[in-house]
C-alpha cells in the first residue's frame, strides 16, 4: 500500500519539476495558492468517493448534487435570508439524506450502485434546472457574507482555507479509514461481503454508512463550490466532477472491485489531477485537450502501477 503511494508522490514531484523547469511561473505563490484551492475543492468529495469505491460501489451523482444543493444554498441565503451556519447545516444534512437514500436502494432493494447513482445524476440535475427555471442562481452585486467568505474562499498566509479544510478532513477520515473498527469493516465488506457477513458484520449498515459519508462531504463541497463560483447555472455547474473524484481515487490505488485503497493515495491522486490541469494551462497546451491529457496520464499511471505490482509479485514468487 505504502509503495503505491510513494510511486504516486514521485510521479507528482517529477511532473511538478518538469513543469517548473519549463515554466517557472508554476512555483509562483499565486499559482501555488490557486492550485491548492482547487485541490481542496476537488479533494473534499474525492475522500467520500474513496469510501464508496472501497465498498465496491460507485457514486455518479456527485456533480448533479453540487448543482442541486448549490442553487438551494444560494436561495436559502439570498431569497430566504437564512443565517449562513444554518444554511450550511441544512445543505450537509440534505447531502447525508441523499447518500442514505442511495445506500438504502443499494442494500435493501439490491439495486446496482451504478444504476442508482446514474439515476441520481439525471434526477438531481433535472430538479436543479427546474427549480431555477434554467436560470442562473447567484449573489446579487454588493451582497457579502464576510465570515462565510473568510471560511470558504479566504486565505491565511496565502494558504486557501478550502485546502486547509481538505487536509483536516483527510487526516480525520484517514484515521477513520485506517485505524477505526468501522474502517476495518469497510475493507472487509469491500473485499468479501460474504465472509464479512459470516463474521457477524452488519454489511448493509457499513455500505449505507459509506454513501452517507460521501453525501455529507458532497454537501460540504457543494457549499465551497457555490462560494467559489458565486453563481450557478444548474445546467453545467459541477458537470463531470464525479469523474474527477473517481479518477483521484483510482489513481490513489482504490480498486473498483472494492476492498483496496488508502487515504494518502486519494489525497495524492487529487493533487496530481490538479497539477495536471495546471500543467495544461502553463505549458500553453490548448485547454480543449485538458481531458485528453488527464485521461492519458491516468491510463499510463495505472498501467505502470500494474506492471510494478506484477514484477513485485513475481519476485515474491506469488502466482
Amino acid at each position, binding site marked *: 500500500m505504502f509503495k503505491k503511494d510513494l510511486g504516486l508522490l514521485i510521479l507528482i514531484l517529477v511532473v511538478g519539476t518538469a513543469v517548473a523547469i519549463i515554466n517557472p511561473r508554476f512555483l509562483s505563490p499565486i499559482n501555488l495558492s490557486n492550485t491548492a484551492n482547487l485541490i481542496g475543492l476537488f479533494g473534499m468529495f474525492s475522500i467520500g468517493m474513496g469510501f464508496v469505491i472501497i465498498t465496491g460501489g460507485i457514486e455518479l451523482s456527485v456533480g448533479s448534487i453540487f448543482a442541486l444543493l448549490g442553487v438551494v444554498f444560494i436561495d436559502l441565503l439570498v431569497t430566504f435570508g437564512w443565517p449562513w451556519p444554518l444554511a450550511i447545516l441544512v445543505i450537509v444534512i440534505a447531502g447525508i439524506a441523499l447518500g442514505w437514500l442511495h445506500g438504502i436502494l443499494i442494500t435493501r432493494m439490491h439495486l446496482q450502485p451504478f444504476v442508482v447513482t446514474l439515476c441520481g445524476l439525471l434526477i438531481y440535475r433535472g430538479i436543479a434546472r427546474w427549480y431555477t427555471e434554467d436560470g442562473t442562481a447567484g449573489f446579487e452585486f454588493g451582497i457579502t457574507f464576510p465570515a462565510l467568505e473568510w471560511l470558504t474562499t479566504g486565505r491565511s498566509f496565502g494558504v486557501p482555507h478550502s485546502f486547509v479544510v481538505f487536509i483536516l478532513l483527510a487526516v480525520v477520515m484517514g*484515521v477513520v479509514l485506517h*485505524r*477505526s*473498527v*468501522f474502517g*476495518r*469493516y469497510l*475493507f*472487509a465488506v469491500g*473485499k*468479501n461481503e*460474504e*465472509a*464479512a*457477513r*459470516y*463474521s*457477524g*458484520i*452488519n454489511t448493509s449498515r457499513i455500505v449505507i454508512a459509506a454513501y452517507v459519508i460521501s453525501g455529507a462531504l458532497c454537501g460540504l463541497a457543494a457549499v465551497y463550490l457555490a462560494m467559489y463560483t458565486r453563481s450557478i447555472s444548474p445546467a453545467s455547474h459541477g458537470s463531470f466532477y464525479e469523474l474527477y473524484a473517481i479518477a483521484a481515487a483510482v489513481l490513489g490505488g482504490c480498486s473498483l472491485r472494492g*476492498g483496496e485503497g488508502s487515504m494518502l493515495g486519494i489525497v495524492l491522486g487529487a493533487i496530481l489531477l490538479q497539477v495536471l490541469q495546471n500543467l495544461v494551462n502553463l505549458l500553453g497546451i490548448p485547454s480543449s485537450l485538458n481531458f485528453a491529457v488527464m485521461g492519458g496520464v491516468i491510463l499510463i499511471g495505472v498501467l505502470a502501477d500494474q506492471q510494478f505490482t506484477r514484477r513485485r509479485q513475481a519476485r515474491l514468487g*506469488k502466482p
Partner: protein
Amino acid sequence: MNTATPFLDLIDIGKTYPGVTALAEVSLSVAPGETIGLVGENGAGKSTLMKILGGVAAPSRGTIRVDGAERAAMTVADATKAGIAFVHQELNLFENLDVAANIYIGREPRKGWGLIDEKALHDKVKPLLQRLGADFPADALVGDLSLAQRQLVEIAKALSLDARLVIMDEPTSSLTASETSRLLDVIADLRANGVSVIFISHRLQEVERCADRVIVLRDGKVVGHLGREEIRHDAMIRLMIGRDLKSLYVPPARAPGEAVLSVAGFRTTAFPGKDVSLALRAGEILGLAGLVGAGRTELARAVFGIDRRVGGEIRLGGEPIRIDSPRDAIHRGVYLIPEDRKLCGLLLDFTIAENISLPDLPRYARAALLQGGAEARNAEAQKERLRIRAPHVAVRTGSLSGGNQQKVVLAKWLSMRPRVILFDEPTRGIDVGAKGEIYELMRHLADSGVAILMISSDMEEVIGVSDRIAVMHEGAIAGFLDRHQFSEDRVLQLAVGKTLH
C-alpha cells in the same frame, strides 16, 4: 445386451496425484446400448474416472481403446469425437439463452456474415426435443426451466453431438419422484436406440431400476461387478463399505451434559416442507451425516442466521431465542465454521491477525480506534495454541495451506466464548496431519463444555470422531445412531432413505 462388442475399453487405468492414489488398475468396457451403474462412496474414485473418460485428466498408467485404436490418454476433443458426453451435476447451461441456442452453442448454423440461421437451428432442435418427450419449446429461456427440464436440455445436447455414451453424474439428486421416473424412461429410450449410459448415483434404488450391470468402486479400485440379476441394494452397500475405519475415536472426558442448543420443528428454505428437531448437548460431538444435498449445510446456515428460517424454534440453554442474523448468533456464542473456507470463512487478502479479530473487533479498540498491539498479541497466542504454521501473524491468510487456513477460522471463534460450534465439512481439502490436529481440538473443546455439531460427508470422519450421529435424508432427520450402533452400513442405509430394522 452384453453380447455387443465394446466400442470403448479402459484397461488397467491408474491415476496418482502427489501422495495419493486416486485410481488403481481400473478396467471398464462399454458396449453399445448398455446402462452401467457406477457406485461408490465419496472419494472412491468415481469423479477421477469420469475426468479420464472426458479427457480432462490423463491417466498415469494404462490404456484407453476407442473403436480398436489404443492410446494413453484422451483430450477433451478426442472424447467428444469418440461420442462421449456428460450431463453434469452442476448443469453447464447459459440461463440467459434459449434452449436451441444452448444445445448448439459454439456450433450454430450460419447464414453468412456471421449471422445465426435461427430457422435451421430450431429445425434441428425440435426433433431432438420430441425424441426426449420434452414438454417445453425450443425457444424457451433456460432460466425459466426446472432442473429436470434443464437436464433434458443437456441430454438433447449430448444427442445433437451424436453421443454414443452419455455419462450422468448424480442426475436425480435434485429431482422429484415423478421427474426421476421420467428421466429413467429417457434412459431406457436411449438404450433402445443404442446409446450407452454410465449412471453415477448414490440413490441405489434408481441404480437398481435402470442399470444392466453395476461397477462398485472403493478406494480407487473396482471391488465388484454385479450382473443384472445380482443388482440389489444390500449387495451394493456391502461392496461399497468394508473399508478399514481406523479407530480415530477419542472418548469424551465425561458423559454429555444438558442440551445447550436445540431446534424443534425447524424448517429451512431448501426443504420448506420438512422439519428438523435435534439437540446439541454440552461436551458432545454430534456428527451430521447424509448425502450431498440432504439439507445439512442449509440447516447450519439457518441456525447461524445466514439464511431465513421458514419455521420452528431455537432454544439456547432451554430459553427460546431469535436468531435473525449471524450477529445474533455470534452474540450468543453460537459459531459456524463454514463449508467454503475461502469464500465465507476468511478474507484471504487480510492478515492472520485481521481475520482472527474480525468477529470481535470492538474488543480490540479503544474509543473506536483499533489497537494493533492487542490484535497481534491475541493472534500470536492463538497461533501458538493452534500451532498455525506461519512466520508471523501479519502474513496474508491466502498464502497459508488449507489446514492452517482452517485453523485461522477456528482461532476467530476460540478467541471469543463459544457455547456451540457448528462445523461444516471441517477437514475438506486438508492434509492428514492437520486433520488429526483439528479432531484433537474439537474433542478438547467438547471436553471444555462446548456443544459441537459436525457436518461431514467423510464416512471415516463421521464414524471416527462423533459421539452420536444424526443422519439427514432430503431435509429431514432419517435417524440417530448411538456410538455402539455406528456402522458404515447403517449410516448409508439411513442416508439413502431406507429405514433400519
